[in-house]
């Protein structure tokens, strides 16, 4: 694509430090995640990193929809949660059907609910609900994780965008959605595990998830998938569609008169972000061994926005760093002074919004620009 750019555009592209960083940043990030972290961290810390990176999928999606599409969604936890719960349902059924697993199976068998998830037995649910049935099969589960959240996001957001509801109103609707889903999950304890969530899995398609090798494998799968997702995002942003998104963000009304249906484009990118979040949710559940309403509701959804904001909402790679940095900070804080965490993250968000509107990526760009200027003088 670069070679057809007119001569006038070339120096401008070269000078933009953000573009430079996006180009080399990809390689630096790959080396950091694939080489440095696995060599440096023990298995426990590496699994923690994998956990933050799973949330990073949502942050990458937020860069697309918020940074470039101008759609601030405070409900990415919904799609993360859908992916996470669907994976948890599969893992739970696998655990329940495995007689060697200690996953409450003996108890289930005692109560006559063989092959049933333990929490259903405790909640006197006697027959597996019909919508749990297909999750016996990995051939259904994985396509479902890839399709259901994305399709629901598309249908929901297209209906809203078509009515020309946007901006802060859209944010409020998504905020409400994440609250509703969390409340529903908590309320339907017999079918969803309620406030405890779904946990206590041992294997994923026969692979024992608790040994170190499996954890390493899952970590690498997460990293490669995340880099792939960043690659897809980069491809979208560099395409004509990416330019149209920026145009919609800045002048949605004008875009209609360029002959585009903005609602369709916004719904598409929203669905892509939902897909990313769902993948992150599924990977999270495999590695952390948990699907919980506390990862669906308002607080995690807002935290994902903070990851993107800290990393830089115009930088896909920045979102990954943001997730790692804020996630690590969260762990550090909760290991030492847990009660101050909420104040810290609130303060961090205010600080970033006020002083670093383009996050760490923007800060880096500014530093580089300053250096260039000094050198040119």
């Amino acid at each position, binding site marked *: *694509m670069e070679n*057809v*750019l*007119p*001569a*006038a*555009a*070339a*120096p*401008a*592209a070269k000078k933009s430090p953000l573009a430079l960083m996006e180009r080399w940043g990809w390689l630096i990030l790959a080396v950091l995640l694939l080489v440095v972290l696995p060599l440096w961290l023990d298995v426990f810390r590496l699994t923690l990193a994998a956990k933050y990176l799973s949330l990073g999928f949502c942050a990458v999606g937020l860069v697309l929809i918020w940074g470039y599409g101008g759609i601030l969604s405070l409900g990415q936890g919904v799609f993360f949660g859908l992916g996470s719960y669907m994976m948890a349902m599969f893992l739970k059924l696998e655990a329940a059907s495995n007689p060697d697993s200690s996953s409450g199976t003996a108890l289930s068998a005692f109560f006559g609910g063989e092959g049933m998830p333990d929490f259903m037995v405790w909640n006197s649910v006697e027959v597996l609900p019909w919508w749990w049935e297909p999750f016996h099969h990995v051939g259904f589960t994985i396509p479902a994780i890839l399709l259901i959240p994305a399709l629901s996001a598309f249908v929901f957001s297209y209906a809203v965008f078509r009515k020309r509801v946007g901006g802060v109103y859209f944010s409020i609707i998504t905020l409400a959605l994440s609250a509703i889903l969390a409340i529903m999950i908590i309320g339907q304890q017999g079918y969803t595990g309620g406030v405890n969530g779904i946990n206590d899995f041992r294997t994923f398609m026969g692979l024992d998830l608790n040994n170190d090798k499996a954890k390493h494998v899952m970590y690498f799968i997460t990293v490669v998938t995340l880099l792939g997702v960043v690659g897809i995002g980069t491809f*979208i942003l560099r*395409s*004509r*569609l990416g*330019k*149209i998104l*920026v*145009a919609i963000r*800045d*002048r949605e*009304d*004008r875009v*209609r*008169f*360029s*002959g*585009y*249906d903005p609602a*369709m*484009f916004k719904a*598409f990118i929203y669905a892509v972000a939902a897909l990313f979040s769902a993948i992150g949710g599924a990977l999270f559940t495999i590695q952390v061994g948990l699907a919980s309403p506390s990862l669906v509701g308002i607080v995690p959804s807002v935290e994902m926005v903070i990851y993107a904001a800290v990393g830089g909402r115009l930088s896909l790679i920045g979102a990954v760093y943001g997730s790692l940095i804020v996630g690590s900070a969260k762990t550090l804080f909760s290991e030492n002074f847990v009660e101050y965490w909420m104040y810290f993250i609130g303060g961090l968000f205010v600080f970033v919004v006020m002083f670093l509107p383009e996050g760490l990526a923007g800060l880096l760009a500014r530093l580089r620009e300053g250096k260039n200027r000094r050198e040119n003088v």
Partner: protein
Amino acid sequence: MAQMILEVEDLTVSFDGFKAVDGVNFYVEQDELRCVIGPNGAGKTTLLDMICGKTKPTSGTIKFNRRELSEMLEYQITRAGVGRKFQNPSVYEDLTVLENLEISYPRKRNVLGSLFFRRSSEIQGKIESVAHQIYLGDSLGMKAGLLSHGQKQWLEIGMLLMQDPELLLLDEPVAGMSPREREQTAVLLNAISKGRSIVVIEHDMAFVRMIAHKVTVLHQGKLLAEGTMDQVQSDERVIEVYLGH
């Protein structure tokens, strides 16, 4: 009678009982360059807003090439061949001049088409020729937000040219331009009016004289007079409401 490209009949829109446009009949022929003048609040911009779909009329019909526009959405009207330039230059400031023009190219305007869009040499050539025509041939790589006010006006006209519409609606295309830029714009409009119809709203009478084939005068939402510049300027009622003071 020449072929009509646009037939607006009995068009009315009221905002909370105030009739901004009131029973207007307005016809534009093919290849015509029409100027619409009138004092502030005469309903000129509202008339264009209704033709391009930005405002829905209360009653009346708008036929473009015999197709009724008033039921269509903005992007459908644009695809049917109507281009609109707004009063304040509306360009995509965070994109380059080249990207602004490329986005306006009237193909691949669906999601998948735009995702896998590749700039062919044909499109590149069209972008360069339009950029040259709007005096921005050397600024293709520049962010549109950095252009001067007058250049933004030209860029927006260029974006319309990329769309290749049959009917161009221009709202005050020379507002904020220097006398030199006004002349260049008049040359530009005369050049692009070949093979398409243009409706221009303008306050600058000297500019209207440079370009107009026919002039329509609106006043308080109603059609006051229509004819050549000379006819309109000698019309008693027009002198009274508009030109006189």
